[in-house]
């Protein structure tokens, strides 16, 4: 069946009309190998493909195809099918995803730098929408999008040479692009350097994405896509591998102690940047943004939307290591959480676990506040006695009032007035409640001496603490005696209002 229209559409790269412009027609890119003695792992064209065409092995996340053991450029045939399907996005919540290869993220593609990739994009007949693909590893218009626009029930083919090594995002670029990406149309293609990657024990494929539904987080049922939320960048879900729990429980990534793990982490977006962190691990090696220069000893690495990174670390200690986006509300309230379960023998030298659990008493100078507790209980039961109040007040006095008025209520000459046998107190016992709750400034005369100081409001004391302290004070050091109740204090506190002017 001829496809004349796709040929027209695919003409962008080769189309040249001298009459309409004065520029000479563009010749197809014949890349000459770099003149400098570049390391093989820089951008390079290693010549035409050799040997038999190879059919690429594609894998579903979180698995990665095996490393390529080849030392020559080959023709690699990649066949990827777009499938629109309804899948769970969270427990009891379903969503219509548009997928490459039936999964979110889409199948992982692995080729070698210099390979000639013959790319077949198929669009399942059941699909409602046309789709295409833009691979960030492609040098060419639209990253292939111009040449792969495919109606449902059709397939497109285009060929590109993987000139640059690296880990690259691919995604659908059909209008509206944001919606296609938001529905899960992204994945990773790894272009290995010609010398290959260093061997590790495990390689895993993780891709973060933000999702926008009209219903709230975990609202049950089938949820449609919400374009307004996507434009406003208010995601409902932020997930690894397209589903809450995709990498937890039985689906957790696994490794043993004393192994090396490499994670290919992508970020499909469409909007958010990821602050990728594995709780309990430090990345021994990071290729930030998937580039060639490595960084070491990294705690959290940024993965741009439409970008990827490679991280490597060595497992030393068993346990569950949590993969998160460290914009932390996304991890705990939107689902950006995955687990790497490491099994193996403990290594106490590296991490001991909890050694001792000992008691730590709070800040109060009085070690025993039992009387306070007793009074409180009694008050609650309605059986509070004056003696209980006095006992509690005594404990509370120490460390709060005694700092200024001294433990024996004597005060400090010319500075802090005494409470012991205080005529000021006896003249108006009720006034004491206001003084403790609101403070006192200005000249007063107590027991024949003048004091002109500032007592700050004891606002850290609550009503029954004030009642107990005052009951203790009024019954100590030859003061007239009496009792204060919590209710009285509360009334006095409320009545006086802020900054009441104490009478002389």
């Amino acid at each position, binding site marked *: 069946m*001829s496809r*004349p229209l796709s*040929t*027209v559409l695919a003409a962008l790269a080769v189309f040249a*009309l*001298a009459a309409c412009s004065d520029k000479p*027609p563009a010749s197809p890119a014949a890349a000459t190998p770099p003149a400098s003695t570049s390391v093989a792992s820089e951008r390079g064209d290693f010549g035409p493909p050799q040997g038999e065409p190879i059919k690429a092995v594609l894998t579903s996340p979180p698995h990665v195809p095996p490393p390529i053991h080849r030392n020559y450029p080959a023709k690699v045939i990649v066949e990827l099918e777009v499938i629109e399907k309804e899948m769970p996005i969270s427990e009891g919540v379903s969503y219509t995803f548009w997928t490459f290869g039936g999964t979110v993220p889409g199948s992982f593609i692995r080729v070698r730098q210099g390979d000639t990739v013959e790319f077949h994009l198929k669009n399942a007949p059941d699909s409602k929408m046309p789709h295409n693909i833009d691979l960030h590893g492609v040098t060419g218009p639209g990253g292939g999008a111009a040449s792969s626009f495919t109606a449902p029930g059709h397939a497109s083919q285009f060929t590109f040479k993987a000139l640059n090594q690296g880990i690259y995002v691919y995604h659908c670029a059909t209008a509206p692009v944001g919606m296609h990406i938001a529905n899960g149309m992204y994945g990773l293609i790894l272009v290995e350097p010609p010398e290959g990657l260093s061997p590790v024990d495990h390689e895993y494929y993780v891709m973060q994405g933000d999702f926008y539904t009209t219903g709230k987080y975990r609202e049950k049922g089938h949820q449609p896509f919400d374009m307004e939320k996507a434009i406003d960048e208010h995601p409902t879900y932020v997930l690894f591998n397209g589903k809450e729990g995709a990498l937890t429980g039985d689906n957790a990534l696994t490794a043993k102690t004393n192994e090396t793990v490499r994670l290919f982490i992508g970020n499909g977006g469409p909007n958010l940047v990821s602050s990728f962190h594995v709780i309990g691990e430090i990345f021994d090696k990071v290729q930030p943004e998937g580039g060639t220069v490595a960084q070491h000893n990294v705690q959290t690495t940024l993965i741009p939307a439409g970008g990827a990174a490679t991280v490597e670390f060595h497992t030393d200690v068993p346990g569950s290591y949590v993969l998160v986006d460290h914009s932390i509300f996304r991890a705990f309230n939107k689902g950006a959480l995955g687990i790497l379960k490491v099994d193996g023998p403990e290594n106490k030298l590296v991490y001991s676990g909890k050694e001792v659990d000992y008691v730590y008493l709070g800040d109060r100078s009085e070690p025993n506040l039992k009387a306070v507790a007793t009074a409180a209980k009694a008050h609650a039961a309605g059986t509070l006695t004056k003696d209980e109040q006095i006992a509690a007040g005594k404990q509370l006095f120490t460390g709060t009032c005694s700092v200024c008025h001294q433990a024996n209520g004597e005060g400090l000459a010319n500075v802090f007035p005494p409470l012991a046998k205080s005529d000021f107190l006896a003249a108006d016992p009720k006034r004491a409640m206001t003084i403790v709750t609101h403070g006192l400034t200005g000249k007063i005369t107590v027991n024949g001496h003048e004091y002109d100081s500032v007592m700050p409001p004891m606002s850290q004391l609550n009503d029954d603490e004030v009642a107990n302290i005052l009951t203790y004070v009024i019954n100590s050091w030859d003061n007239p005696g009496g009792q204060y109740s919590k209710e009285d204090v509360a009334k006095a506190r409320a009545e006086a209002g802020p900054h009441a002017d104490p009478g002389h």
Partner: protein
Amino acid sequence: MKHLLPVLALLAVLFGGRAAAAPPLPGDSVYNLPVQLTTQDGQQQMLAERRGRPQLVTMFYTSCQMVCPMIIDSLRLTRNALDPATRAKIDLLAVSFDPAKDDVATLKSYAEKRKLDPRIWTLARAEPAQVRQLSGVLGLQYRQLPDGEFNHSSELILLDAEGRIAARTTLIGRLDPAFVKAIGETVNKP
């Protein structure tokens, strides 16, 4: 009686030939689409009447300033690149996107101005609905603008003798060697 046999034989050849003539049209032949063309000489012709000889086909319009002159030139260039034997076996057909303006007289004067030999070149018009259908079957796109100009795609299309699209090129303004090769192969297919 002496003449009857040759007469009968002649009749048999005529009618028998007729009956054995056209095998059914292949499903992917553009001649399955009934399109009524009117040439620059005012001749009415069904598109399917071109069956039997390979055709180089394109679509254009006479008032097009930009690329259509190049399309005509490319057709000429391509034809001239063929060897004389192959050249003699193909016809050139250019159908207008713009039947409203491109009536028979306009087509004729265009052909004369550009020195297009009518034995080789057919410039044709069809009714608007059929123009759209022809573009559909050839895989060309076009759109009329408010000022009367057209946006359109530009290709040279090779039909084999049965009307199947055998090759096509978007390279306009210079020769496409791959296309020329394909013409040679199609025409000289046994």
